[in-house]
């Protein structure tokens, strides 16, 4: 990979010379990853099979940004063959260049964080010994299938990345990272997943297995649900999809500047309170071994921690170089996968206490249709095929519900609670919602 990067840099530099005329490059940055991965799957209790057979992959992926001498810009994808066909590609990239009046400059910081991203055990799974991957699937099968659960689908994968972030101002970051992911899904009703830069711990593995078994048990005894306004508790996976869709989507600088957000630049300038005062939202891309952690964005912006909402008030949009320049603010780290966005309250409730206080409500275990919702309005109208009905603090059984309301408004309500479930990074949310049950 070093060879590829060296050759790529040399070829780019060749085009920084004046003899290249209209192909002369003024500035550039790129990010490139060499990824080697292995994935093993289980479908309908059977290991492998055509649709979930073990897969091995090796690839180089990346992105390059070019500022030409006449200030036009190009963005292009890098892959294994790019270096070999560089002279042809640069001509095509130039033809696809565009004018960008307020285009970003090449960026470098004095310091970049040290972030733990590499796990030797995961690396060994990729290159030396894949036994653990097969063993994990067998453990899922052994622990779950037989009694109440008839069928599981599962997968596990391990990846190693060599990452390079270079630019024309001398930035040259290179590092190794790993990724380990797995999911488990039982009887097509409930599932859990895990992704981290380290191998799953035994404790977490056991939690995934036991929670999957417990939820399937709770969901299988189906009940009819009466419609009306009631308590709705969003499990962490569901909360995460709400945060990502309704909060994060509305905080991207590009959406704000282009008026495709619930919030405007003026809202940020005035640090307006848009959710309740005890709730905060931050990006943190430097937590050790988090999947969403990194040293630098491919633009050269260091990873780090930044508050997007402090005490319910807007602090900064999520800004890449272009939109930071447009609205004259500092660029921020960009969310990059699971674990980089954190929603929390100064008052976090316990799960058991919260359940015991619910007189009439549901626990939402999964959702259909989040991607179809209008994030800008905050309105949601979603089908939750698998909920658990709660009456007077008791879990009654599984039910289907359609929940509707406005998530941004719910986060302003005094009634709404955030809380922690042990071993989960994302909180649960309890809120009031309109619920339509099956008649």
């Amino acid at each position, binding site marked *: 990979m070093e060879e590829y990067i060296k050759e790529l840099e040399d070829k780019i530099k060749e085009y920084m010379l004046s003899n290249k005329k209209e192909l002369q490059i003024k500035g550039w940055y790129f990010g490139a990853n060499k990824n080697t991965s292995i994935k093993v799957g289980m*479908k*309908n209790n*059977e*290991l*492998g*099979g*055509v*649709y979930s*057979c*073990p*897969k*091995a*992959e*090796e*690839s180089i992926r990346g992105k390059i940004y070019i500022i030409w001498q006449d200030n036009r810009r190009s*963005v*292009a*994808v890098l*892959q*294994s*063959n790019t270096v070999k*066909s560089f002279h042809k*590609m640069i001509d095509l990239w130039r*033809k*696809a260049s*565009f*004018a960008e*009046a307020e285009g970003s400059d090449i960026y470098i910081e004095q310091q970049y964080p040290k972030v733990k991203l590499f796990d030797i055990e995961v690396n060994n799974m990729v290159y030396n010994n894949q036994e653990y991957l*097969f063993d994990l699937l067998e453990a899922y099968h052994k622990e779950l299938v037989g009694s109440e659960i008839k*069928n599981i689908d599962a997968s596990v994968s391990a990846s190693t990345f060599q990452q390079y972030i270079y630019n024309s101002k001398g930035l040259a970051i290179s590092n190794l990272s790993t990724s380990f992911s797995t999911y488990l899904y039982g009887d*097509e*009703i409930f599932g859990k997943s895990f992704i981290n830069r380290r191998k799953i711990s035994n404790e977490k593995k056991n939690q995934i297995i036991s929670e999957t078994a417990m939820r399937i048990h709770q969901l299988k005894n189906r009940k009819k649900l009466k*419609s009306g306004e009631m308590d709705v508790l969003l499990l962490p996976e569901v909360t995460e999809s709400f945060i990502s869709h309704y909060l994060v989507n509305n905080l991207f600088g*590009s959406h704000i500047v*282009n*008026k*495709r*957000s*619930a919030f405007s630049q003026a809202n940020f300038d005035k640090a307006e309170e848009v959710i309740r005062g005890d709730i905060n939202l931050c990006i943190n891309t430097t937590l050790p071994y988090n999947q969403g952690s990194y040293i630098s964005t491919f633009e050269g912006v260091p990873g780090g921690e930044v508050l997007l909402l402090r005490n319910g008030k807007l602090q900064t949009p999520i800004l890449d170089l272009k939109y930071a320049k447009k609205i004259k603010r500092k660029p921020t780290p960009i969310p990059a996968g699971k674990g980089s966005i954190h929603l929390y309250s100064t008052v976090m409730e316990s799960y058991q206490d919260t359940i015991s206080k619910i007189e009439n409500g549901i626990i939402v275990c999964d959702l*259909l*249709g989040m*991607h*179809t*919702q*209008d994030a*800008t*309005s905050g*309105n949601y*109208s*979603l*089908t939750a*095929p698998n909920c658990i009905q709660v009456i007077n603090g008791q879990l009654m059984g599984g039910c*289907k519900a*359609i*929940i*509707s309301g406005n998530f941004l408004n719910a986060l302003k309500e005094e009634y709404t609670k955030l809380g922690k479930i042990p071993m989960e990074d994302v909180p649960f949310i309890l809120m009031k919602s*309109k619920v*339509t049950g*099956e*008649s």
Partner: protein
Amino acid sequence: MEFFDDIVKKTLQYGEKLGVYLVLRIQKTKAKYIVINNGETEEMSYNEAGGIGIQVFTKDGGCGFASSEKIDQESCLQMVEIAANIAFQIDKRGGKKNKEIFKISSIKDKAYASVKYPFDYLKIEEEEIQLLKFNKEIIDSYNCISIETFYKFIEDQWRIIRSDGTDVFYNLPRVAISNTITAKAGNTATTRSAISGSDASILIDKDKRDCLVKRTKNACNLAIELLEAPTIKGGSYKIILDYPLAKGLAHEAFGHAVESDGLKTSILGDSKGGFNKGQAVASSIVSIIDESVDGDYAYQPYSANGVKRRPVNIVEKGILQEALSDVFSASEAAVPITGAGRVESYRHIPLPRMSNIRIEVEGFVPMEKEIEDVTPEELYKILLENNLAEPHEEIIYLVGYKGGQVKPSQGEFVFNCSGIYLLGDSCKLYQPAIFSGKVLSALKAIIGALGELKLDAQGTCGKAGQSVPSSGGSHYFIVLEANKDVIIGGA
């Protein structure tokens, strides 16, 4: 692609030496993307990529897969070795086996899409000029909307080779312009418009350009009206769907549920993976067909396993007839192979998928106007005139597809619209709300349709982490009677 002949030959020979059967999938892609935001170019790019996916089967039916971006001899041989080792591991560990690929006939063919304007007909800067002009025309017509126009023109070239001598070439050109429109005045509302095809005619030909402008202005007007629209009460209603939503119904409620790889857990299959052929699933006026159409956004003449794709009559006059099947799961489902295997890229494993799916309704009411010109009030009038509605009956009309999802195992599907009209002499607009239902109830609720077939509702279908182009449609409008299992969620 013939360029790879020598590599292919040596790779197949190496497979033979290792005692394994190979399916090679070579992909070369070129793509142009343009994003225009409120009258300015946001980003523009041209990319070329490609690679090879190698699926290996041992004699016992163990399967392994490896892929690489490098289509050279060294890399291909290495990938065969890795995939073969994995496949032998599966044999050793007693994993699931599949020998169906050994039973099909070999084929050699070339199937190229017919396009009026080839990929390079317009330079990317010419495409940019056209899109800027369109985007500015819209933005200048309104004062409280923003519009993002996204253009993509992709041409995939595929070559599928199997150890049995199969060698199939095909290309998949596709183009789409989609707009995200946001109206903002205190409240905020977002709608969409789109047009798609297989070439740049959507930018060049006047009728298509005019159609896009009309669709986009309708979407802008809707977004502005939604700013003041109330929410509708959740529950069961008599419902009118426009054709993109009807495509959503066919796709989410039915298409996914008859894909042969999922029949074991689908509501339209049995626990052994069999298919419930002969089951009455709709009223006798309803048929559902999946068919790859030349010139369509989701064109797919051959499966990614090198099997010719054929039209599939999923439902014929209300009766479940055929599944969407591929070589690997057709036998288990006891259905014929229809060549439905599709793949996102060479890095993925093919799965049975839809291409262009449509609902056809017998005895539909013809319409004179184009669908884009029909107002909700006119629609209501036509429904009354044709006895598809009673005066004072509560009927809602859902417009604009915004995506959907399905859980075939539980027979649950959802999709969302851009807005809801309560029909009447004077129609009232409500906020969008999720349309949710049971697979086995939804089609039975169809009682009629209006207008000719329109099949260009474009989308992207996600399944098992892979996205492929999808499309389809129906008559301009279909009519569903109120059913307790088909619910509008409220907003």
